[in-house]
């Protein structure tokens, strides 16, 4: 009988080998699915994984990978800090929306002033918006012990309602002929988050994502706060003996993740999205949770996971448009990729052992 056995130390080999193994497994099973749908599986898989990086239009699509991955990475890193400490902020989507609304409101309030300071102030306002929205579950948690998963999730729906109100009401473009949606930031250069280097898709959001990745890595491995986060997650009682104040940790982790999500929203609204609209949020806050886990809650892993996720989106779109695959097939394919990544991950910490009956016994 096959059974799992915990490894004494995590396997370095499998730590690096699991992602490729998962991708190959997904290609095989996904290929069968595509073949059943009457498509050439090799063509589909090449379109998803190869073409965006090396294909005919890679000059454009490579940049789009960072555009798509940037907000995912930025949000996921903030979430990962909290997840490591056992603080479950699953309302990043709401914080992302509120960051965009607050930041955009600040910018639009001074339209069309031209001043170098406008964009930096908007970034701060965006971070503040996300932070403030995350503080609601944080403070309810520390003051009343209210479950942060639920409150942060509920606040996503509240934020969506405010977003609808913003785009049909207080942020509506006065020159938009009554249509919903704010002014477009492409017509407001001082507040615009334009590309710094277009071939790579690099705008300030991408810069922020990559820098945050490095900073978070340093924080977790070298800094006292990082130690507290890890300790609180692994051994909450021991953490208390070490003088970790759980309330402060909650406020800090929620605050950081909220602020990063808010910033991501601001970079998105002033850059790629261009404006506040009813459907401005496109699920980045939820997808980032998956990215955080795919990256094993490690900032550098998250950067890689963000790019992999972006690749399936961009490549999936290509496959859908060019090969006539229904969008749902791409969603199923993405879901399978996540399942396989999560499943083979077990090999990092465990190994399979063949055992006969109850022969394997021993110390726990």
């Amino acid at each position: 009988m096959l059974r799992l056995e915990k490894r004494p130390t995590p396997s370095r080999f499998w730590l690096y080998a699991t992602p490729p193994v998962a991708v190959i497994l997904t290609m095989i099973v996904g290929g069968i699915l595509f073949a059943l749908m009457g498509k050439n599986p090799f063509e589909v898989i090449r379109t998803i994984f190869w073409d965006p990086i090396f294909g005919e239009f890679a000059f454009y699509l490579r940049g789009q990978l960072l555009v798509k991955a940037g907000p995912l990475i930025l949000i996921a890193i903030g979430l990962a800090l909290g997840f490591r400490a056992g603080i479950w902020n699953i309302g990043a989507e709401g914080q992302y929306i509120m960051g965009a609304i607050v930041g955009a409101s600040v910018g639009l309030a001074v339209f069309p002033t031209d001043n170098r300071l406008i964009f930096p102030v908007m970034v701060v306002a965006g971070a503040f918006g996300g932070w403030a929205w995350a503080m609601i579950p944080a403070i309810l948690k520390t003051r009343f012990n209210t479950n942060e998963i639920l409150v942060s999730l509920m606040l996503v729906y509240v934020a969506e309602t405010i977003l609808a109100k913003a785009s049909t009401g207080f942020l509506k473009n006065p020159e938009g002929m009554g249509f919903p949606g704010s002014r477009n930031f492409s017509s407001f250069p001082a507040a615009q988050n334009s590309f710094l280097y277009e071939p790579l898709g690099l705008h300030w959001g991408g810069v922020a994502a990559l820098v945050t990745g490095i900073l978070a890595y340093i924080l977790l491995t070298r800094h006292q706060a990082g130690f507290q986060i890890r300790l609180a997650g692994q051994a909450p009682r021991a953490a208390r003996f070490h003088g970790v104040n759980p309330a402060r940790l909650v406020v800090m982790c929620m605050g950081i993740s909220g602020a990063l999500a808010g910033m991501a929203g601001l970079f998105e609204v002033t850059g790629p999205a261009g404006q506040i609209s009813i459907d401005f949020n496109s699920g980045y806050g939820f997808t980032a949770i998956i990215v955080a886990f795919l990256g094993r809650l490690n900032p550098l892993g998250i950067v890689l996971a963000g790019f992999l996720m972006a690749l399936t989106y961009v490549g999936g779109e290509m496959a859908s448009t060019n090969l006539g695959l229904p969008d749902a097939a791409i969603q199923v394919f993405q879901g399978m990729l996540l399942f396989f990544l999560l499943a083979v991950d077990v090999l990092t910490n465990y190994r399979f052992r063949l055992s006969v009956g109850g022969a394997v016994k021993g110390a726990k």
Partner: protein
Amino acid sequence: MDIGGINPVILIATLMASAVPILMAALGETVVERSGVLNLGVEGMMVVGALGGFVIAVATGSPVLGFVGGAVAGALLSLIFALLTQVFLANQVATGLALTMFGLGVSSLGGQGYNGIKPPPTGQLLPDALADLPVVGPILFGHDWMVYFSILMTAILWWVLKTTRLGLIIRAVGESHEAAHALGYKVNRIRLMCIAFGGAMAGMGGAYISLVRVPQWVDGITAGAGWIALAIVVFASWKPWRVLIGAYLFGGITVLQLNLQVAGSAIPVEYLSMAPYLITIIVLVIMSAGKRGKANGAPAALGQNFHASR
């Protein structure tokens, strides 16, 4: 009889029906979470159940078989989650979210060709003579069988979790898998069965949307109901009767805000639209503030995977 232009009898009767999908899904998730598993894939299981139920009901012409089909479809999808989290020990939060993504995709792919078809109707269970009674008629007797079934399930789960040996085992596994394991219980096997039960309940809840509430198949028909079900479980502190109250409250506020609009209430509607969520938060705060220090009655091992080290 009307209060502010709204007839409370009709309002209550309406909310009882509109709460069935979230009630069923939340009851299932309650059992799952009681056993120490957090499955965030409720939305995915509901939408797959909605399609499964619809397909079977159309194929067989029997809405009852449709609900069975919805339960089977939801349970099958949940087994993917069970396999990943109980055998491969994958993280439950991430797996649950991936399950939702996968379920939405699968249902949309499988539902092609089912647009624009009407399923066989699910009618009122009891005769009109009872349903037409004043006041009690619409509230107590005017429903289809799923409304009664959902209430019956609430009672059964309350009874099972509170008084039976099975309930004790489930709770033990959720409170301390180490201790339950030491007592000789197969932790992962028990959790697997709870997950499948949760999937079946979510699937039936989804089927209620596609067979009774809407009744039609369209992509993404559940439109976020699964997330609300998750919220209700926590709101209810993992207790079946409170789940019922939570589902009715939630369904009730949604129905009430629409009714207030029709009645011409001066309350701005956009605030009404967010009212259910805000009220849930407020109720949650009041409830958890009452017992400081205790973790809202959450199962102690919630979200943690178990591996029996030997």
